[in-house]
C-alpha cells in the first residue's frame, strides 16, 4: 500500500457502491407485509379544523387504517419535543407550544400533516386520501417575521402571545451603549438572510416495524439515529430504548434537514405497533419542499461604533428569526448560540451586544441548515465591514487587517462567550488574495468593461465554530442532550479493524477518512478497516453528524479508543516478547522492544488477544475491543478567506461568478481530496444562496416556490472552477488538531459574492444588496441608478 494515513488523498471507499447504484437507502428497504403511508397535508397556511370525514377513505380499496390527530390524543401521545430551551431576557423560558404528530384543532402551515392513510399500496393510499373531506375555517396567516409581530397579526399558537417564542440577549448592553456614545462614527446596516429549502438529493423516508414481542425498528433518513431513538422513544412514543432500534443506512445528503425528529417517523413507528405490520413512507419531492425544515430567514439590524481610524469599538445587533409554525428539534439554538456567539468573527471588537427575537409564522419550521447560524452571522458581519469601508472610505482589506485578532492573541476570549483556541487570519487572507490574483483585478475589470460587463471583487474573512461543546456548557445554555461522541474499535482476530462510530456519513466520506485515521495510528491498511455507522443496535451510542463535528469529536473519540487498543497491545506484546511494558514501542504497525530488533506485528498481537494460549490471562482479559466516549473541551474554530469575482451583464442584470478562491484554516487535513469536495459543495450552496435561492411565500403563507420549476437550485454552470487552498493552524484541544470542514464553504461564500456584486455596482451608488441577487433585482438597480444608460 502507498501512504494512506492522515493527509493522503485516498479515493473514497464508499463511492464504488454509490456509483454502481448499490447503495442501501431507506427507500431500497422493503419489509415483508409492509403497508404504505400517505399524508394528507394542509393546503392552508392557517386554519381551524372544523370537521374531518375519513369514512370514505377508510372504506376505499386496500386501505388498512386512517389516522388523525384525535387518534394520537386518544393514545395520550404528546407532540414532537424540542431539544433546546432558550430563556428570554426576563428569565422566562421560551414559548414551547405543542407540535402534534398530526394536526389537532388547527393547521399552521402549508404542508402540516393532518391525516395519514395506510394502504396495501402507495397508489391506494393516495387514492383514498382524495376521498378525505376536511372543513376548514381559514384564519389570518403570516409568512414574514415583520408581519407576524404586527399588532393584530394572526396568532399561530395561543401559547405564544404576539407570536414571540423568545426575546433573548447576549453581551454587555451598558458597555456597548457607552462605546456608542463615545464613538467617532456609527455605521448601520439593515439586512435579511433569505430562507432556503435544503433539497437533499434523497427525499426523506421512514419504515416502522414492530415484532410480536413489541420490539420496534425504525429505518429512517437520519443524520443521528441515536438522537432519534432518544427523542422519539423517550419523549413521543414512550418505547423503552432497549426495545427500539433506529437504523439510518445510506443517506443521500442531509445538510441539517435530516437531524430532526419528524412527525412521519413517529407515525410509521406508532402505526407499526398498532397494526403489527411494517409501515413505509417515502416523501415525494413536492412534500419535501413543505415538510423538510427550512433554513436561515433572519431580518437584522447591525450597528458598529468606530473610532476615527476605523477601529471597531462596539457592535450592536438586533435580529428577528423566523421559527416557522412549530419548533423544530434544534431551532431555538440556531439564532442564539450558533449565531450571536459568532458575532465577533475574526475581529477584536471589544464589546458586543445582540438581541434575538424568535417569531412564529405560518411557514414550514426553520432549523439548522448547512452552517446553521454561522452563515447568518458571517453574512451580517462581512457585509457590515464592507458597508463601513464604503462609508468611511477605508480600503476593505486594510479595514479588516486593522481589526483582525492578531495571530499572537490566542487563546482569545470574545465578548460573546466563545474562546478561540487558534487561528491566523492574516495568513489566510494573504494566501487567498495571492491565489485570487487580487493585484491583477484592475486589469480584469478593465477588460470586462471593454466587453460591456461590470466586474467586481469581494472578500469575506470568516470564522465559524464546529463541534458544539462541551456537554456541560451546552447543557447550561439549554441543550437537552450531551454533545460528546463515541467510538468502538474492534480489532478482529486476523488484524483487520471494524470501527463503530456514533457519527453518521451522508455524503461526507467518513468510511474513508475514519479509516485513514486508523491507518495512521494502527498501521492497518485502509482496505482492512470497516467503518460502521447508522444503527443503534450496532453502535454503543452517538450524537450523530451535524455542525461539522464528525472528525473533531467523532475522530477524537476514535483516537482515544485506539489509544486504549495500543495500550493493551503493548501489554500483550510485553508478555510475548518477555519485556517490560514500559519498553514496548508501537510504530508503523509493529510492537517492538526499544533498542532491539525484537517485535510483533499488529496482526500477531490481535491473534494472540483472541487465541490466548500464551497470554497474561491472570492480569489481562482476552480480546482487543475498546470503546471511548469523548467530550470536547471547546468548539473548534475554522476560519479563512473567500474571494469572489463576478461579472454583471449590464443589459440583463445576470450575475456570473467568474472566479472563486477559498483559503480555509480547517486544522489538520485528513484527506485533501475530500476537503476540496466539501469546500466545492459548500461554495456551490453559498453561491446558490447568494444568487438564486429563495423559499418564496406570499404574505398569507402560501408557498410560491414549491417545486424545482420555481425554486432555483444552483447548477454546474452557475458555479465556476473553485480554487481551494488550506492554511492550517492546529486545534489545540483535540488529539488530531482538526477543526472541521463540512460547512466552511456555505459560511464564507455568500458575503464574498454579495460584496463582489456591490463592488461591481459601485458606480451605481449601491451600498447593500440582500440575497438572492437575481438578475431582475440587479436589472432594477441598473435601471434606477444609471444616468449614463440613457445616453448610450
Amino acid at each position, binding site marked *: 500500500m502507498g501512504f494512506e494515513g492522515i493527509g493522503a488523498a485516498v479515493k473514497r471507499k464508499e463511492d464504488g457502491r454509490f456509483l454502481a447504484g448499490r447503495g442501501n437507502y431507506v427507500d431500497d428497504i422493503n419489509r415483508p407485509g409492509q403497508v404504505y403511508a400517505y399524508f394528507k397535508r394542509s393546503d392552508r397556511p392557517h386554519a381551524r379544523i372544523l370537521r374531518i370525514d375519513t369514512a370514505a377513505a377508510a372504506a376505499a380499496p386496500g386501505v388498512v387504517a386512517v389516522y388523525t390527530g384525535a387518534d394520537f390524543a386518544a393514545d395520550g401521545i404528546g407532540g414532537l419535543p424540542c431539544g433546546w430551551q432558550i430563556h428570554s431576557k426576563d428569565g422566562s423560558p421560551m414559548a414551547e407550544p405543542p407540535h402534534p404528530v398530526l394536526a389537532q384543532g388547527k393547521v399552521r402551515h402549508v404542508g402540516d400533516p393532518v391525516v395519514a392513510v395506510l394502504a396495501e399500496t402507495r397508489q391506494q393510499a393516495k387514492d383514498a386520501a382524495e376521498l378525505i373531506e376536511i372543513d376548514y375555517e381559514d384564519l389570518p396567516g403570516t409568512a414574514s417575521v415583520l408581519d407576524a409581530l404586527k399588532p393584530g397579526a394572526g396568532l399561530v399558537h395561543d401559547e405564544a402571545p404576539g407570536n414571540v417564542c423568545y426575546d433573548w440577549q447576549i453581551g454587555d448592553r451598558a458597555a456597548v451603549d457607552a462605546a456608542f456614545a463615545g464613538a467617532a462614527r456609527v455605521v448601520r446596516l439593515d439586512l435579511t438572510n433569505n430562507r432556503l429549502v435544503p433539497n437533499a438529493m434523497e427525499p426523506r423516508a421512514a419504515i416502522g416495524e414492530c415484532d410480536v414481542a413489541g420490539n420496534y425498528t425504525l429505518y429512517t433518513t437520519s443524520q443521528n439515529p441515536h438522537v432519534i431513538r432518544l427523542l422519539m422513544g423517550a419523549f413521543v412514543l414512550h418505547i423503552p430504548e432497549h426495545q427500539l432500534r433506529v437504523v439510518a443506512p445510506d443517506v443521500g445528503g442531509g445538510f441539517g434537514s435530516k437531524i430532526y425528529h419528524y412527525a412521519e417517523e413517529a407515525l410509521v413507528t406508532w402505526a407499526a405497533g398498532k397494526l403489527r405490520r411494517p409501515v413505509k413512507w417515502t416523501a415525494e419531492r*413536492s412534500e419535501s419542499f413543505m415538510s423538510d425544515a427550512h433554513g436561515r430567514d433572519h431580518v437584522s439590524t447591525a450597528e458598529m461604533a468606530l473610532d476615527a481610524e476605523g477601529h471597531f469599538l462596539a457592535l450592536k445587533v438586533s435580529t428577528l428569526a423566523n421559527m416557522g409554525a412549530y419548533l423544530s428539534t434544534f431551532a431555538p439554538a440556531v439564532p442564539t448560540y450558533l449565531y450571536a456567539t459568532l458575532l465577533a468573527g475574526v475581529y477584536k471588537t471589544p464589546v458586543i451586544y445582540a438581541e434575538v427575537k424568535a417569531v412564529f409564522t405560518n411557514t414550514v419550521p426553520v432549523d439548522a441548515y448547512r452552517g446553521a447560524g454561522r452563515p447568518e452571522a458571517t453574512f451580517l458581519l462581512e457585509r457590515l465591514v464592507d458597508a463601513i469601508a464604503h462609508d468611511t472610505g477605508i480600503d476593505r482589506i486594510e479595514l479588516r487587517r486593522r481589526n483582525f485578532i492578531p495571530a499572537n492573541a490566542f487563546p482569545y476570549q470574545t465578548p460573546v462567550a466563545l474562546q478561540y483556541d487558534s487561528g491566523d487570519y492574516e495568513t489566510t487572507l494573504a494566501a487567498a488574495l495571492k491565489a485570487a490574483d487580487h493585484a491583477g483585478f484592475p486589469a480584469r475589470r478593465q477588460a470586462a468593461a471593454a466587453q460591456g460587463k461590470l466586474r467586481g471583487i469581494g472578500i469575506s474573512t470568516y470564522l465559524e465554530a464546529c463541534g458544539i461543546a462541551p456537554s456541560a456548557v451546552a447543557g447550561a445554555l439549554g441543550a437537552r442532550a450531551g454533545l460528546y461522541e463515541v467510538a468502538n474499535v474492534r480489532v478482529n482476530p486476523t488484524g483487520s479493524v471494524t470501527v463503530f462510530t456514533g457519527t453518521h456519513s451522508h455524503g461526507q466520506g467518513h468510511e474513508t477518512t475514519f479509516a485513514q485515521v486508523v491507518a495512521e495510528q494502527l498501521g492497518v491498511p485502509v482496505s482492512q478497516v470497516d467503518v460502521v455507522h447508522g444503527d443503534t443496535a450496532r453502535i454503543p451510542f452517538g450524537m450523530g453528524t451535524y455542525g461539522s463535528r464528525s472528525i473533531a469529536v467523532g475522530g477524537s473519540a476514535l483516537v482515544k479508543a485506539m489509544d486504549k487498543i495500543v495500550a493493551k497491545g503493548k501489554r500483550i506484546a510485553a508478555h510475548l516478547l518477555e519485556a517490560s511494558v514500559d519498553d514496548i514501542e508501537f510504530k508503523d504497525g509493529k510492537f517492538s522492544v526499544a533498542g532491539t530488533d525484537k517485535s510483533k506485528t499488529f496482526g500477531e498481537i490481535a491473534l494472540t488477544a483472541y487465541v490466548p494460549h500464551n497470554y497474561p490471562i491472570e492480569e489481562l482479559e482476552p480480546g482487543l475491543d475498546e470503546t471511548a466516549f469523548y467530550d470536547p473541551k471547546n468548539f473548534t474554530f475554522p476560519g479563512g478567506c473567500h474571494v469572489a469575482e463576478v461579472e454583471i451583464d449590464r443589459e440583463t442584470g445576470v450575475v456570473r461568478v467568474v472566479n472563486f478562491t477559498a483559503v480555509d484554516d480547517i486544522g489538520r487535513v485528513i484527506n485533501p481530496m475530500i476537503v476540496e469536495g466539501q469546500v466545492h459543495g459548500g461554495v456551490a450552496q453559498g453561491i446558490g444562496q447568494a444568487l*438564486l435561492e429563495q423559499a418564496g411565500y406570499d404574505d398569507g403563507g402560501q408557498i410560491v416556490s414549491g417545486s424545482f*420549476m*420555481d425554486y432555483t437550485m444552483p447548477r454546474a454552470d452557475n458555479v465556476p472552477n473553485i480554487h481551494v487552498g488550506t492554511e492550517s493552524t492546529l486545534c489545540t484541544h483535540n488529539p488530531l488538531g482538526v477543526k472541521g470542514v463540512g460547512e466552511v464553504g456555505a459560511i464564507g461564500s455568500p458575503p464574498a459574492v454579495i460584496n463582489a456584486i456591490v463592488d461591481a455596482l459601485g458606480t451605481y451608488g449601491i451600498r447593500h444588496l440582500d440575497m438572492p441577487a437575481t*438578475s431582475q433585482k440587479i436589472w432594477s438597480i441598473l435601471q434606477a441608478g444609471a444616468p449614463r444608460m440613457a445616453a448610450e
Partner: protein
Amino acid sequence: MYDFTYHRPTSVADAVALLGSDADAKALAGGQTFIPVLKQRLNKPSKVVDLAGLGLAGISLSGNALVIGASTRHADVAGSADVRRAIPGLAALAGGIGDNQVRHRGTIGGSLANNDPAACYPSAVLALGATIVTNKRSIAADDFFQGMFTTALEAGEIITSVSFPLPVAKSAYAKFNQPASRFALVGVFVAKGPAGVRVAVTGAGQNGVFRQRAMEAALTASWSPDAVAAITTPAADLNSDIHGSAEYRAHLITVMAKRAIAAAG
C-alpha cells in the same frame, strides 16, 4: 398518477380512433410535460394513446421545404446536418430545450400541440412561417397558436409533421432562461425567409407566442441589432411572476432580439 389504459397504435387512423372513442383519452408524445402532469395527478385520462409507434419521426429536406416529422426528438433536430445547414437557428433552438434527458425524449409535435407559453419551439415555427401538417389538414403557424396551451387542433386531430419553407436566409434564437425551470422567461426567434422578416417572442406574452411586428418592420428596412434597439414591447400584454416582472420581460425582449439578430449575422 391515476390508473389509465395504455395504447400504442401503429397507424394514425388507429390513434385517431382511440382518441375519438373517449372524451378523456389523451395523446402521449414525448411526455416531457404530460408525464410530470400525470405524476402530480393534475390530469386523469381514461386512455393514454402513445404516438411513438406511428412512424412520424424523421427529417427530410426537399428543394423548398424542411419537413420534420411530429415524433422527431429535439436532440435529433439539434444534431441534424440538414437542419443545421438549412435553418441553423432552428437546430440551435432545439439544442437548448430543457436538458439532455428532455431533448432525447421530447418531440416537436408534442411541444407544439401543448403550446406551453414558455416553450421554445412555437417561436421558431411562427417566425419561420412554418405549416403544421395534421392528419386532416395543413395549418399556417399564424393560425395555429391561439393562446396559452391552446391551438387550432381539433378533437381527433394529430400533428404529423411540420414544414418549414426554404430558403431561409437568416435565423437565430436567443433565450433568457427562467432560472429555476430553464424554460424561456423570454425567447426571441428572428428569421428572414420565404415568409419575410419575422420576429416571434415566447415566454413573455400573456397569450403565448406572438410576433413583434414593429421589430419586423424595422428589420425589413435594416437587418441589424441597432434597428430594434429602441423598439419596446408594451408591458401591459406581458406576463409577470416571481422570476420577472412584465417590465423586465419587455426589456429582455429587446435585448434578446438584438442578440438573436447579431447571432443570425
